[in-house]
């Protein structure tokens, strides 16, 4: 992201606060996960490995949640 001036930062903070107030716990959890994900350390290999692990963990959670829902509603 390019450098922001004071007005740009104020707008960004405003957008973030609006978003956080609108999304509730699920959105905040996602926001924090993405914030952690997007702050990279100096080592490329470690960054890539951490990103791949985070992605695969999310995939597993998604598939498990959907499969559990399908069982619950009788679709599987």
């Amino acid at each position, binding site marked *: 992201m390019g450098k922001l001036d004071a007005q740009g930062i104020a707008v960004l903070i405003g957008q973030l606060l609006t978003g956080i107030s609108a999304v509730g716990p699920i959105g905040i959890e996602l926001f924090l996960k993405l914030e952690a994900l997007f702050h990279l350390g100096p080592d490329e290999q470690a960054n890539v490995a951490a990103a791949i692990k985070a992605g695969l963990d999310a995939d597993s959670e998604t598939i498990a949640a959907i499969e559990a829902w399908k069982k619950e509603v009788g*679709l599987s």
Partner: protein
Amino acid sequence: MRVRIAGAILLTVITVACIHKQSGPVTPWERVNVNMAGLAQINDAVAKGVIAVQQTGSMTVQQAAPILNYQELVAKDHAAIESILASGSAQAASQAIQIQALLNEIKDQGSALIASGGLGIKNPKSQQTFTQDLQGIINLAGVILADYELAKGN
């Protein structure tokens, strides 16, 4: 809940543009992998949101099923891509066609789902909200596809 999901995508759009690195520039390879992880986490948040909406009775099983089927496809395609990426950038470059095909499947299936109107939301305003959620996933797949092209030097 619908507002939450839409808001989550809003946050994502804001956040995706801001990958920070402690030292040095973010490499194209890092950008591909971080955005891939972001896609999976957004997909997970939206899927859980749809399930929650359905469980409150605001959406029928028949309405939720096509959305969740798509999100399961995204998760499985994403996992398949990750297994290729995990083998390293050289290996990933040699399997470019497969990666591109999986990302295009995510985009195309999502676009088809939106176009079908099969989201099945009773409230037209809410339907637009879920459409936007799916559009966010489709758009991010497009960003990753572009990043991937850059990373492999095309």
